[in-house]
């Protein structure tokens, strides 16, 4: 197996694993955050605006971890520096 095949294989597998493992944590965290926010809204419907704003901001911050994983897997697939290095040689 030459190095081109090896790098392509490793990149694709790593991209898949990055998304698979990296999305577990944010998914669980977002579920918990939404659950808490919904029960808080159910208890205090008057505070809905504040709760919603805080929920959106915190959801975005939790989701950004999954987005980092996505960016890394996109870089591995579309703009892989190791792949470009080997191809250029």
């Amino acid at each position, binding site marked *: 197996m030459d190095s081109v095949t090896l790098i392509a294989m490793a990149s694709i597998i790593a991209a898949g694993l990055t998304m698979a493992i990296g999305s577990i944590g944010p998914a669980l965290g977002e579920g918990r955050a939404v659950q808490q926010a919904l029960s808080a809204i159910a208890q205090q419907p008057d505070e809905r605006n504040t709760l919603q704003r805080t929920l959106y901001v915190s959801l975005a911050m939790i989701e950004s971890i999954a*987005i980092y994983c996505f*960016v890394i897997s996109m870089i591995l697939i579309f703009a892989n520096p190791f792949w470009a290095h080997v191809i250029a040689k």
Partner: protein
Amino acid sequence: MEILKSNQISPDQILIWEWWFIKLNATILYTWLIMAILVISSWLVTRKITSDIHTSRSQNFLESVVSTLRDQIREVSQDEPGQYLAFIGTLFLFICLSNLLTIVPGYIAPTASLTTTAALAISVFFAVPLYGITKQGVWNYFKEYFQPTFIFFPFHVMGEISRTLALAIRLFGNIMSHDKVIGILLAVTPLFFPIIMQALGLLIGLVQAYIFAILAMVYIASASQTHEKGHA
């Protein structure tokens, strides 16, 4: 018409015009387009502005946008919104328009390029100490970096840098991923399902613009309010 090829992740890679060392890529072109739309439309509306009861439709729209922005800024900062409105409002309107225009065919959001989002995040990075120092003075602002003890100085600096990075990557990742997901879905389930994803993308774009503006406001407020809280 395919503008962004499927193996490119950034509109920076599309060169539209090149002369010597000056290169005009799609990101710059669409940024100029958005700037032109924002400036010309608000100039057209504010040219014939009235304080009458009967306002024009467009003036009514802009007034509702500005008053919503002011309300949101006031709620987050617990302060007079006028001083922050220029910066936060510009960030929100620019990101919002650049995300929402993705529904126009042939257009690529400049926020789908890391250079644009990094520029926006760096402007937030410099706006935080500017507002902090004008609000509470040089000494009080830099004193915050050494709270509770001087050992915490590197952690404060690292926090500043990493949250700027997070701000840039979050916006870039969300908008770029939306483009890519639609491209992949077009290959798998064409015609109907990508339309739903486009609608979802509009919502994501709006929410991301809102979050970027609110987070910038939270950072600025946290830098400029600590002193007052100590006395309250």
